């Protein structure tokens, strides 16, 4: 297999940017195929974190001294970069959060608790990660609202007719994942958003699994909210963003109270700051935000279109290889998929698959992937999941396939 050339991506040159990819595990070269859980960080992002911490750190939005102004500038520069990355109209539509989970909780609290009440309905889908289910359940428990669920077919695709039938006068909100973390299904969110908007219903998109793999344009999608995480984008953990349309964000109540989110405070009355600061109480993870800014610069320079094309090659090759293996079943066969391959090996529990692949240096995820409704649909307690990034090679797919053969031999 020629791993150098795939869709114009110089994979070997890219791999040289990722120090962790040189690791050996169990005496074998690391084959990292758990990118849907968290991606690895390239040297320019590591260097950016070191440069910030060694020459630019102070608290932001506060003091008049040089370091504070520098840190504030770099932090806001990262926000501008993220606004460009997903094509937000304005940078104040980008709120830094600790990740996708916090971003969704922010909307459930800031929008949901204000605008969703007893008898109202929220539409979610079977493909949601628990982080786009549980905050809404908590809201429903508090308010007496109800969740309606869009079912899927056996390929792992949403049943759009059923989605449309779920709408009624009580429908107040839609939450849907852009890409399924457990199966890789890419959902037709643009038409789903259009359908909801025609009925005056706002839509939140969980983009955690989409932004690392596809170009995302929030204006073109016309979504009301879009949430994603930095650590799946080659950035640090503990940082993510919520995009929200400015007009909506302005009507929402704050999520957390504290410093930086206020204009003035007396014990009688507090006046909240403008967006995005209204939603960024306390000292944020400044270094992580700046690191995320560097990460999207790296991805942009690499080219999201090229990344998407290379990952599709990896997925297609892996799908073809695994489909050819007797006793292995791919779970999630949607027509449109991102770089996720969930599978089951006949007679072998996914945890045993994962441990044995680890003995071959191959890192995959096994379990329910925080998507138990998906597991329930396919009547499995768990799956094995290989998920690809642009720095993976076809040779690594071969290593995965060889690893699965070893698993089958051990359990023969």
């Amino acid at each position: 297999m020629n791993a150098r050339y795939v869709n114009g991506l110089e994979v070997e040159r890219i791999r040289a940017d990722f120090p962790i990819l040189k690791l050996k595990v169990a005496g074998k070269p690391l084959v990292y195929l758990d990118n849907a859980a968290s991606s690895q960080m390239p040297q320019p992002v590591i260097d950016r974190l070191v440069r910030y911490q060694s020459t630019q750190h102070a608290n932001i939005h506060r003091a008049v001294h040089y370091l504070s102004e520098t840190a504030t500038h770099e932090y806001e520069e990262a926000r501008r970069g993220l606004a460009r990355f997903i094509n937000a109209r304005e940078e104040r539509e980008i709120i830094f959060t600790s990740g996708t989970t916090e971003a969704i909780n922010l909307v459930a609290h800031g929008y949901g608790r204000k605008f969703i009440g007893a008898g109202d309905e929220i539409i979610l889908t079977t493909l949601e990660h628990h982080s786009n289910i549980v905050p809404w359940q908590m809201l429903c428990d508090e308010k007496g609202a109800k969740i309606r669920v869009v079912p899927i077919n056996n390929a792992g695709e949403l049943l759009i007719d059923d989605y449309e039938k779920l709408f009624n006068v009580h429908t107040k909100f839609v939450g849907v994942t852009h890409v399924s973390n457990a199966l890789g299904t890419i959902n037709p969110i643009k038409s789903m958003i259009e359908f909801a908007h025609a009925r005056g219903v706002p839509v939140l998109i969980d983009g955690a699994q989409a932004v690392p793999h596809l170009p995302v344009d929030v204006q073109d999608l016309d979504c009301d909210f879009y949430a994603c995480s930095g650590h799946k984008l080659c950035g640090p953990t503990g940082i993510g963003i919520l995009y929200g349309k400015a007009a909506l964000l302005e009507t929402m109540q704050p999520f957390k109270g504290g410093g930086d989110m206020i204009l003035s405070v007396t014990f009688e009355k507090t006046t909240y700051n403008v967006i995005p600061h209204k939603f960024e109480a306390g000292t944020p993870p400044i270094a992580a935000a700046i690191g995320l800014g560097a990460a999207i610069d790296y991805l942009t320079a690499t080219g999201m279109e090229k990344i998407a094309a290379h990952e599709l090659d990896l997925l297609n090759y892996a799908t073809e290889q695994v489909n050819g293996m007797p006793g292995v079943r791919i779970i999630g066969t949607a027509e449109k998929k991102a770089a996720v391959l969930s599978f089951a090996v006949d007679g072998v529990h996914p945890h045993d698959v994962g441990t044995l692949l680890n003995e071959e240096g191959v890192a995959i995820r096994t379990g329910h992937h925080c998507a138990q409704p998906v597991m329930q649909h396919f009547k499995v307690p768990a799956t094995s999941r290989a998920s690809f990034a642009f720095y993976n090679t076809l040779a690594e797919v071969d290593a995965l396939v060889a690893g699965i053969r070893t698993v089958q031999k051990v359990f023969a």
Partner: protein
Amino acid sequence: MADPKSLYQEVILDHNRKPRNFGTLEHASHTATGHNPLCGDHIGLALKLNGEAIDGIAFQGEACAICKASASMMTATVKGKTRQDAETLIQEFRDMATGKLDLQRQPHHLGRLAVFAGVRDLPVRVKCAILPWHTLHAALNSLASTSTEADADPMHAPIGGA
């Protein structure tokens, strides 16, 4: 199995393929169900106690190879032993799996069960190996069910405690 460092030694694979005491037990005096919510694995255990002696034991359920082999070898080991012997083995197995028992230097009664010592290096798999032993402890103490996540369970195995 070629690699001696692998957790998947032949004895474990054999007990996974042909689990001993797998099935139901008539006239059980003690039963319990163990559940690992992290992976959905569950083990049902039935015992027949004659005074202090474990006269009969059987297990059922769906689980990974490590959990199933652990259950199989556990039932084979404790059958015919006393309740006190079983409790001692439960404690020793748990200590081995969490890295608290040094098999070379400290006395123990684990015998062939020492094949599971390797899980101490795989914190996520510790619970797989321990689940049947949690469940045995629950059955002996007439607790209807247990979970690897039950904090109140005295057998709770801290992840990464090794």
